[in-house]
């Protein structure tokens, strides 16, 4: 497999690995790892590094909502134009154009349901091209970014086996 792809997989799995440990896991030397990471960042392949947080366990106000958004395009306004506008809000955690019954899928984050509702009604629904919004508040998270938050399989293996 391509070395850079291999490194990318390691970063996706755990971006907190040190350069030395990444080098050990990929059979690359540390300088090459640094160089590849620089290139991945410069090319915009790697856009950032974040923790996977179970907000229910963090002592913090945190409310998320999935918002379905329908829009009406015209000659002057394309999806990209509307997206560029919505993406600028810090409340918008993710914004994607999707196939199916609606156009955009937005993940909105706020301190309270009131915050999120107000953001959607005041900032999103008022955009002229937006024809409809449906807000789904997230009630519980079981798995996020490949990490299970519930029902971890316990390691009950014998400590030594043939």
């Amino acid at each position, binding site marked *: 497999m391509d070395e850079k792809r291999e490194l990318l997989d390691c970063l996706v799995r755990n971006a907190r690995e040190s350069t030395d*440990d990444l080098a050990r*896991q*990929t059979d690359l030397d540390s300088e090459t790892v640094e160089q590849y990471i620089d290139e991945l960042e410069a090319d915009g392949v790697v856009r950032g590094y974040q923790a996977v947080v179970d907000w229910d366990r963090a002592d913090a106000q945190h409310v998320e909502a999935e918002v379905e958004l329908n829009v009406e395009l015209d000659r002057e306004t394309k999806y990209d134009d509307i997206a560029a506008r919505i993406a600028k809000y810090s409340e918008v955690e993710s914004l994607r154009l999707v196939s199916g019954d609606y156009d955009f899928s937005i993940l909105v984050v706020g301190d309270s349901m009131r915050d999120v509702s107000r953001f959607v009604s005041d900032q999103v629904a008022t955009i002229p091209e937006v024809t409809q919004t449906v807000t789904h508040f997230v009630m519980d998270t079981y798995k996020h970014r490949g990490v299970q938050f519930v029902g971890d399989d316990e390691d009950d293996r*014998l400590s*030594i086996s043939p």
Partner: protein
Amino acid sequence: MNIADRIGQVPPSGIRRFFELAEEMDDVISLGVGEPDFSAPWAARQAAIDSLERGRTSYTANRGTLELREAIADHVRTYDLSYGPDEEILVTAGASEAVDVAMRAFVDPGDVVAVPEPAYISYVPGVTFAGGEPLTVPTREENDFVVTPEDLRRAGAEAADLLVLCYPNNPTGATASEEELAAIAAFTREHDVDVLSDEIYAALTYEGDHTSIASLPEMSDRTVVVNGFSKAYAMTGLRLGYAMGPSDAIAAMNRVHQYAMLSAPTTAQYAAVEALQTCDDAVEEMRREYDRRRRFVLSRFEEMGMPCFRARGAFYVFPECPGDDEEFAEGLLHEERVAAVPGSVFGESGAGHLRISYATGMTDLKEALNRIERFVESR
């Protein structure tokens, strides 16, 4: 009770003693585990649950369900192996049962069975229980512990009736290339030795592709291949393996199996069909995680100056340790709380080595290797 003499001929496993030592202690990080740290892919587990819900709790055909044998036949084409599901495949309760049944089906009292060492601990007792004469064949580190015709000759294996092979290897992690297998194959043809090839770790091969000795010219008639679901699909506790070979060999094995076992666990067979049909991605994901750990562990041993040949399969590496391996392993356990199995447990030619299993999460692996490094430096 009167205990049969041949029980006394088989000493208790050295692994057992070490297990008891490790169990007495807290906070041990174990690199001594011979099974995956993953659970079986969820789709396979779900298939097992579904089969139970549908009340599939009876015996299956002795040889296993036809559906499973067909799925196995399809699957092993990846290794250029072609076996008919009706007569050339037997589903067993783990690869372990397949090995045991093979010994009982192929070994007469006095027959010589050559076992290259270091070896998985069940082969020699399997030969003894079947009334055969085990002939251990020491292999050499300079060949990455892959047996050569020279090793076989030196041990007198020309006289053997059966040769047991295991690549990728437990305990060394060695894989055998097509050239190395071809040389072994030529030896077995020249001296008319049959082959029992335990390929349970075939799917866990990291550099190059797995080659089965049965896929080499004129070998399928004299080879029984054993494989299973334990390692690749992380299904050790479901106890499911299989044997493939010429129809007369499989019929003979089935004769033993039908009386001893009747049929392999039914629930596991349903899980296995699902595993073969839909779990390739899950297996590949596990394989790549093992590979990252393998490279990590090899790098760490290199950094701490413990010589370790480049293991390319299974989930073991086999570094040299200074001094007596049992003493080293016991010291490591007591002083640093890291369990690793001394190489001599797997035969004399494994002495002076440790079997390090990397079927352990990366966090524990890192900590364990730091502890080993500290232990080596303190000596």
